[in-house]
């Protein structure tokens, strides 16, 4: 699973940081920062889905590797 964060869309709701702190940090301005380099470890797939499906700005996208 690949994860992508669109920093332009992020408005700092901090939902991803709350739900999946293993995948997201926040900077000094409250903007989301992705902690993994694109590839989501298998044990964090559920958390990645949770973060993506709760972002009010649709800033997080997941793509499934076939």
């Amino acid at each position: 699973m690949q994860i992508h964060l669109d920093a332009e869309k992020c408005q700092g709701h901090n939902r991803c940081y709350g739900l999946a702190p293993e995948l997201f940090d926040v900077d000094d301005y409250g903007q989301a920062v992705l902690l993994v380099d694109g590839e989501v470890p298998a044990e964090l797939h559920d958390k990645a889905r949770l973060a993506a499906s709760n972002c009010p700005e649709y800033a997080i996208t997941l793509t499934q590797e076939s």
Partner: protein
Amino acid sequence: MTDVAKNEQAEPEVANRGFGDRDPIFGDSPEGTDVWQRVPYNPDDYGPVSDFATDFDHADPDYNPNAPKVWKQLREDGCPVAHSDRYGGMWIPITHDTVHEIAYDTENFTSRSVVVSVGRPGDMAMPAPIGGVPPISSDPPFHGQARRMLLPPFAPKQIEPWEEEVRILCRRLLDDMGEITPGESVVDAAVQYAQHIPVNVIGRMLGFPEKDEALFRKFVHDALERINEEPGTRDGLDDLGHYIGAQIDDHRENPRDDLTSYLMNQELNGEKLSDDIVGGAIVLLLVAGIDTTWSAIGSSLWHLAQSPDDRKRLQDDPEVMTFAVEEFLRAYAPVTMARMVAKDNDFHGCPMKKDDWVLLPFPAANHDPKQFEDPDKFVIDREQNRHAAFGLGIHRCLGSNLARLELRVAIEEFVARFPNFELAGDVTWSVGQIRGPRVLPVRILAD
């Protein structure tokens, strides 16, 4: 002077308007209606709302208590955008799509005034793109600069350390309710509890005296609920301007480690912020940070008073709070924002004219069945919840992390102290853009 001419002179205007002359930085004076201009609307000409599709009024006393029914009816009647002649002309998008679109469109919709009332910003008001209470009243590009100054103190890691203080405050308020006899004692969860929490915290963050809490609540009431009163008669807004001016002066004499001194030390384009901008930002923090969160806490307790299953779930499964707090925010989002139409435009067939008001009911967007499954049902562990309680786009609520913290801790502490409670009389709801119970009597029951 026209608005356009005014805008071109925005920079010197700001620089020249010091606070030294003691004019209020926010309010109806000087000269009565210069800061606010009367809109062509006399509330006395209109009675209670008969049809929300064509005569919408969010200040109708029946609106807030019944808002979810109003939105549902409008949607089912195929009305994605309601209209009203009140307040000089107002549009009300109801669906998630339309609310989202307007929130993102800063070209056609200005944030210059975000509280719909019988007054619009007048010639003496701070012009766009700054507005009277930046950055909520600001448009790009100024908005981004002003917001960037305010973001750091409200970022999650700056807010997290406040948890213990909020918890101590909540416990003190519960202690202050005195001796409780289960089955008999009735407390007011809004008046004795919810309303004190955010005002205390933001007052402390700003470095204002704790004894002034009641005054802050009055300011908020004046600004947000008395929207149908004549500009020039709302003395409370002048009082607020004077009060904040005095606090700024005090902080200038005695700088300290708080948000007010932080703001006064910020620079924009290499210059310290003018008192107008500092004062406007303080008004925003005070007004936006008080009755909003107080409303969310109150609505959540109102819900829990009627939902034994949800009370039990919170007790048995404290982890569910991660989702519950967002569901409270979705189902009972307190804040409807507003915009003014910046230029004539056709919005999906709605002929919007410059200076028309546009309400942005994020709470209605949160009840759109196209966006949420079973939107009118409270699902305590709703896992997919892209709610818009804190807005959408560039004006996302600056204090959202603080609000979320206060809401979570307030609920946790209330149900820890009183695991069972029920409604015990008439609930009074707020009037206007912030929706929540103002009187909320609950009877404490046996554990």
